[in-house]
């Protein structure tokens, strides 16, 4: 079945360096450094990435950080809670804009 997203394309991420090798190099180094153990553990960073992957709805990132979270020792329960955090922020972000709607309603209404 033809589709815009192909699972095998994740392995071709490096192709993005073909036209702009210096930018790719900088991105790769920065990306690698971001996920190294620091004030947060590698496991915590993978869980954050998993949650963000769901927020930005990137199927490549969801695949990659599901594997990474498991391989860093997270349980499916912890990963599910992380996705709920992403969903709650997305849902809450929509809902909190309702205040803006209410402000406008107040301004326009008698």
């Amino acid at each position: 079945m033809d589709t815009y997203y192909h699972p095998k394309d994740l392995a071709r991420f490096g192709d993005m360096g073909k036209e702009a090798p210096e930018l790719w190099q900088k991105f790769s180094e920065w990306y690698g450094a971001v996920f190294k153990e620091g004030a947060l553990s590698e496991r915590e960073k993978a869980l954050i990435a998993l949650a963000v992957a769901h927020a930005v709805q990137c199927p490549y990132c969801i695949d990659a950080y599901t594997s990474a979270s498991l391989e860093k020792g997270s349980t499916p329960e912890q990963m599910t809670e992380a996705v709920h955090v992403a969903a709650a922020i997305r849902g809450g972000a929509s809902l909190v804009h309702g205040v803006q709607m209410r402000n406008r309603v107040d301004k326009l209404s008698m």
Partner: protein
Amino acid sequence: MALPTLLNTRSPLADAATQRATLAALPLARTFEDSLADALHADGISVLQINVGKRCNQACRHCHVDAGPDRTEVMPPDVVDACLRFLDSTDIPTLDITGGAPELHPQFREIVRRARAAGRHVIDRCNLTITRLPNYADLPEFLAEHEVEVIASLPSFASRQTDAQRGEGVFEDSIAALRRFNEVGYGVEGSGLVLNLVTNPVGAFLPASQQALEADWKRELQRRHGISFNRLYTITNMPISRFLQFLADSGNLQAYMEKLVAAFNPATIGGLMCRYTLSVGWDGRLYDCDFNQMIDLGTAAGFPATIFEAEVAALGHRRIVIGPHCFGCTAGAGSSCGGVTVT
């Protein structure tokens, strides 16, 4: 309820040659042999690991032995005696007893007593739930009396993952067993009784960092269940037997092998367990490791093939027999019966 073994369900992968052929047929970036700078040789023998049989009260989904309640292979008395006589004739410091559930072997306690009397360190690879069966409830006391190191399997501190891998109800029984081990002093600081846990990933992925996981496990098992232990060992699932069947059935086999090959770490070579272990099968045949044993890869041609003819001088620097499954021990931080091989 234990899952049926591959043998019981007449799976083609119950056959060692079929397993080897399945792995050999996979298109991989390189062979294990090509990954090595030099041929692999043993560097002495410091562990004699005896697999006393395939009988087990469990039938875990990842089991490389295809052990289970329906298996009948049990090390006969003459092989047991030959193993202990060989041990006596050497200065090999450690006897590692595995299975199946090794405690089901009718001579298990005799093996422990004789090896301890000979001054050897003894390891019991325990599935925990065996101690919940009638006639085996006093095992923690027996093992403590003989100061046996217990290496116990528990894939997760969460019940769902544990039961998914090891069978319904195993987690609850395992926690009860761990409490009993703690009660007799195992895993308790200052007791001298060592209780180490082993975790295998519950699926087609590599284990987490042993060091990071150990800290999480100590915190969670203490917080959730009041359980303490000494060390946590992470072990990579080997593409052998029931885990191989799982990989094939779930469509993960090629990707898992590619992952192992991509994660090859040359720094693991020095600590590979085949370099210091001699493995004995239930029938007395010799192998470089328990994994080679399960896919019927005996010691290399020209070297002693059974415990009846074993000599340290002849086996201590033997050539190691390798195959694609060996990538499982060299991925990432490495994997062995004692956990990671690179820290």
